[in-house]
């Protein structure tokens, strides 16, 4: 029996970017739940756990990295990927940082690699 599809929380306030990325991720086997704000993501995280969380940083109601400490505490098995339009230094508790406009095959490979490592050590 094959493993269940990984669940993924996608937080991005750019509607077009989120729509396209969600479609691509779903087509790649993820079960995607979308959030357009930190408040929305917090509400989802109170009731659900995700295998993967992809967090955009610059959001209308705050900075996506503000979610990371609470997310890492409450859901230590969730692989956290930070998505950004800027070049970033490593962020504590983030498993991987993905620059926007990265090659899609590279993005999917990075997610899969980070998820595999997280599951192995988790």
């Amino acid at each position, binding site marked *: 029996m094959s493993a269940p599809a990984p669940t993924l929380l996608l937080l991005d306030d*750019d509607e*077009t*970017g989120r729509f*396209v*990325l969600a*479609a*691509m991720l779903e*087509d790649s086997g993820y079960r995607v739940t979308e959030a357009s704000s930190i408040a929305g993501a917090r509400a989802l995280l109170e009731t659900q756990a995700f295998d993967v969380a992809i967090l955009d940083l*610059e959001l209308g*109601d*705050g*900075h996506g990295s503000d979610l990371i400490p609470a997310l890492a505490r409450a859901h230590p098995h969730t692989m956290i990927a930070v998505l950004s*339009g*800027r070049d970033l230094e490593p962020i504590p508790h983030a498993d991987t940082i993905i*620059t*926007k*406009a*990265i*090659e*899609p*095959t590279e993005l999917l490979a990075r997610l899969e690699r980070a998820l595999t490592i997280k599951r192995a050590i988790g």
Partner: protein
Amino acid sequence: MTRQILSCPPRLQALWRSAAVDETVSSLRHDLRNKLASIRNSNFYIRRRAEKTTTLLKDDPKVGEFFGLVESELDLCTQLLAVKAAPSPLSAVIVRPLVSELIGELLQSLQLPKSVEVRLASPPAAKLPAAAVPLDVELALFVLIENAVEAAVEAGGGKVSLEERTDKGGFWIDVNSACEPQETQAWLRPFYTRKPGRMGLGLKIAKRLTAGWAGKLELTAANGTLRASLWFPA
């Protein structure tokens, strides 16, 4: 923006212009990367769906070529966005007086309205050592003070307090002013402003300049007061 630039000491004006351009370019770069990501991911999705569910790519080889063309053009755009200008020579360290003296000097250039009172609280225990203050740190500090004074003017007058303290392995300069607490994060967004004739880049510029010296800018709000704090490692 021009009025803001002209209100600061002449030695900071060129740096402010340069920093405003840097911040604008950075924001454009960020926005373009978002758009390119959507185009790239759409192209990838359509191609993969076409491969999985149709014979389109086999029937018409040009379709595959076009997908490749879009991808290679996107690569070029991404490379162009990655090109960064050389650091501005204006960032060189310039020795300035004590931070508290510097604050006094910056306040003078602002020509404070009578409705605004600025208090510089610097208890002897927290007195900072004499230090060389880089020009861009000076500008970051000026931006914070100017913003706080503007907020006080907008509120019909009031107090702005400035404090120096040492903590967390470094020193802090706090600028406190009246502000609506819910706006704390919004102020750090580029081009966010409620004031006509301004560009809304000041705090973003201050944050960028501070980070260049391994420092940070923090905004905290409580009881109707916004505290903008610059921290630098000792």
